[in-house]
């Protein structure tokens, strides 16, 4: 039996050896009514940036000047994704991604300001708020008169959101909240904060509830702001709630629905963060190319040396793949596909790691200048490190990619093993999974080799994961190194899919395609090699040794020799 039920999602299908060509081969271009608007907005933004925004000063003074805030308000940047009926612009996720990309390329701190506001701060209100709540808050949020923030993280709770210590209990027609949140971006300037608290009185297992909190009300206080490595200019602050009264009408969604809301908000936020990393990488590449063509060493510009060419080429590869992932995942959201959690996680993980690689190599290309101010390079490195940590650490995201991504596969394997003739059917299933998914959508002959590689890769991802699940069963979740390898294979498979889909969409534009093809080919080469390495390590690895070494270290509380 080859599972055939439409999954309406991509990576989950890859694990089943299936490719939803409906999604894959309609590479999302911007809606024609958005294209002009977005390109005009982008060119105005670049003009504004060169006139008014000094990212060096923002980093040094750790403040975003009011003139910049006002200029951003005047341009309408705080309402990009808020529907037009609330005074926003109602842009799609795809359009938002392109703008966030350009904002980050100018100044990552401004990205955090807008991202914390739109991507996560008010996203819950957009997705789950009722009409009255949206009427109450969205108009002022759309103009930037009011700013939003998102408060989930606590001193003892990061990615394991189930274990929140902030509590809210029923109290006089509302709720009484006590607790602390930390590192809340925009927390110091926000006038509407989406706060998640544990609500033990509500039915359910560890029920969380989302509240729309107005910081002006009694019981709320601001704690200190963190001294951050990078992204200076926006503050990440402590929020304290002491017997804060929150009226019933400020519950977002239903009581007990908080975890689902947090997950949904973070899922969609990850695509925006991917776009931000792509923008930052473009900035890196521009600086790298400029410096390499200026710096002379041993009688030639360093741009002429292969060791430098390799670095800038890798940046271009990473940008192209990351951007393709952002667009494909963003397009899924815009098409109303609900299940994009795995694609969003893969996008965030890939883009944030690529961003770090780019920043690191930029510093390397710049040499000693890379390490000191006032050159721009060290700041890029500082600004980019957080991306691998926030909105879900990349480690957690790998577990999520596996857990969520293989859900369909595990279900179908369970069904097989429980049925009569289970073992026989399982064997047949394995045999059938040797078949590669058909790929009729990749019609351009110039893409034939890549389409072939992608088909083989998808079939292998499915087969290897099936075997791994059969061998380790329930214990697999504990073998995190194996799980992460499978997740890495899935990330690269998604990367291949996104690149293939985008190249196919460029089929009619030979000039562009001829520029993109070498980039696509180089990535396929690299990804295929990485996937092979991961596959091999599923069989032969030193995981057990490493686990033992860690135990010895923990007992010695440090280096054991």
């Amino acid at each position: 039996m080859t599972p055939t039920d439409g999954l309406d999602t991509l990576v989950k299908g890859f694990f089943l050896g299936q490719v939803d060509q409906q999604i894959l081969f309609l590479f999302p271009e911007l809606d024609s009514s958005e294209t002009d608007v977005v390109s005009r907005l982008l060119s105005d933004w670049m003009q504004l940036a060169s006139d008014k925004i000094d990212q060096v000063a923002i980093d040094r003074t750790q403040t975003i000047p009011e003139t910049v805030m006002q200029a951003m308000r005047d341009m309408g940047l705080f309402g990009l994704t808020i529907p037009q009926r609330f005074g926003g612009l109602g842009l799609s996720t795809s359009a938002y991604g392109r703008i966030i990309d350009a904002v980050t390329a100018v100044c990552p701190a401004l990205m955090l300001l807008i991202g914390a506001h739109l991507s996560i701060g008010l996203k819950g209100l957009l997705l789950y708020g009722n009409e009255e709540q949206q009427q109450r808050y969205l108009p002022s949020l759309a103009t930037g008169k009011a700013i939003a923030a998102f408060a989930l993280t606590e001193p003892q709770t990061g990615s394991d959101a189930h274990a929140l210590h902030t509590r809210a209990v029923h109290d006089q027609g509302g709720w009484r909240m006590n607790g602390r949140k930390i590192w809340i971006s925009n927390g110091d300037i926000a006038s509407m904060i989406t706060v998640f608290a544990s609500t033990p009185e509500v039915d359910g297992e560890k029920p969380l509830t989302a509240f729309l909190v107005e910081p002006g009300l009694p019981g709320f206080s601001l704690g200190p702001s963190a001294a951050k490595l990078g992204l200076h200019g926006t503050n990440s602050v402590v929020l304290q709630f002491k017997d804060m009264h929150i009226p019933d009408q400020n519950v977002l969604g239903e009581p007990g629905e908080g975890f689902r809301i947090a997950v949904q908000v973070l899922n969609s936020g990850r695509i925006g963060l991917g776009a931000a990393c792509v923008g930052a990488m473009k900035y890196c590449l521009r600086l790298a190319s400029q410096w390499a063509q200026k710096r002379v060493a041993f009688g030639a510009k360093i741009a002429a040396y292969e060791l430098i060419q390799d670095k800038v080429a890798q940046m271009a590869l990473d940008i192209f793949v990351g951007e393709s992932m952002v667009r494909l995942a963003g397009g899924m959201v815009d098409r109303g596909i609900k299940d994009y959690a795995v694609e969003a996680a893969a996008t965030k993980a890939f883009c944030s790691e690529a961003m770090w690689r780019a920043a690191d190599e930029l510093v390397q290309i710049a040499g000693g200048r890379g390490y000191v101010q006032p050159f721009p390079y060290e700041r890029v490195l500082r600004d980019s490190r957080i991306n691998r940590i926030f909105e879900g650490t990349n480690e957690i995201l790998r577990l999520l990619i596996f857990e969520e991504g293989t859900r369909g596969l595990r279900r179908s394997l369970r069904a097989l093993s429980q049925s009569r003739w289970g073992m026989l059917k399982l064997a047949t299933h394995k045999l059938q999974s040797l078949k590669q998914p058909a790929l009729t959508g990749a019609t351009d002959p110039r893409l034939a080799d890549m389409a072939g590689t992608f088909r083989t890769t998808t079939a292998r991802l499915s087969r290897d994961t099936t075997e791994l699940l059969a061998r380790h069963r329930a214990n697999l979740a504990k073998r995190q190194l194996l799980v992460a390898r499978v997740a890495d294979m899935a990330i690269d498979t998604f990367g291949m899919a996104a690149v293939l889909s985008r190249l196919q969409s460029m089929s009619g534009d030979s000039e562009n395609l001829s520029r993109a093809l070498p980039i696509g080919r180089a990535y396929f080469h690299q990804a295929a090699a990485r996937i092979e390495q991961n596959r091999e390590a599923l069989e032969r690895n030193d995981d057990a040794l490493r686990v033992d070494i860690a135990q010895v270290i923990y007992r010695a509380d440090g280096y054991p020799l």
Partner: protein
Amino acid sequence: MKAVVMIKQVPDTNEVRLDPRTGTLIREGVPSIINPEDKSALEEALKLKEALGAEVIVISMGPPQAEDALREALAMGADEAILLTDRAFAGSDTWATATTLGYALKKIGDFDLVLAGRQAIDGDTAQVGPQVAEYLKIPQVTYVADLTVRGDSLCAKRVLEDGYEEIEAKLPALVTIVKEANAPRYPHAGAIITAYREQKVTLWGAKDIGADPETVGLKGSPTQVKRSFTPPPKEPGQILKGSPADAARDLVAILRQKNIV
């Protein structure tokens, strides 16, 4: 009052790069923008709109893609946009361009003020504005850095090489604006959306403005481009070292050698 702003779409010279092999401009992929000083002229008009309730019409002559520049002007706050576009206008020099714009302005008729940028960054002629004023037989005030309108006259501060000049002129008149006059506004993204989705750009061809075919386009152009070329790069200068007396002696020797003195 009614103010008409003449704008031109030009390649963004900040984005123009040189081909290292041929030394010529790479025009491919260079974004088009509203000529910066035309944008300043538009900003002056929009200020009059805010202060006096002036109606602002933008007009441009160019290929169909110049519509994008007019949409930008609408997004900034212009009330109406007109694009003069017709194969018959192709090959116009500044004279024929001014004539064409003149036809259109006569068709609009009841304007009080015509504004334009001092000059365009692609041609740098600074001719079209004054020629339009001549064609319309209205007063012209060029190089304006500050503009006020009172009743039926304007007061303008002109930038000269060594100072300023204040001039009063009766309306209707034509002014050309310099960059120093203002910092043009950035349109709100909402206005951009409205400009692209809801507002329209009126297209006028040669027939619409009643143009005599002999007076526009290549036929109406008394000047013609004979050849375009990139001037050879300037040779590097020479620095004379040594004491001032030695350097002076060397300098005189060189000047003699070149038969300059």
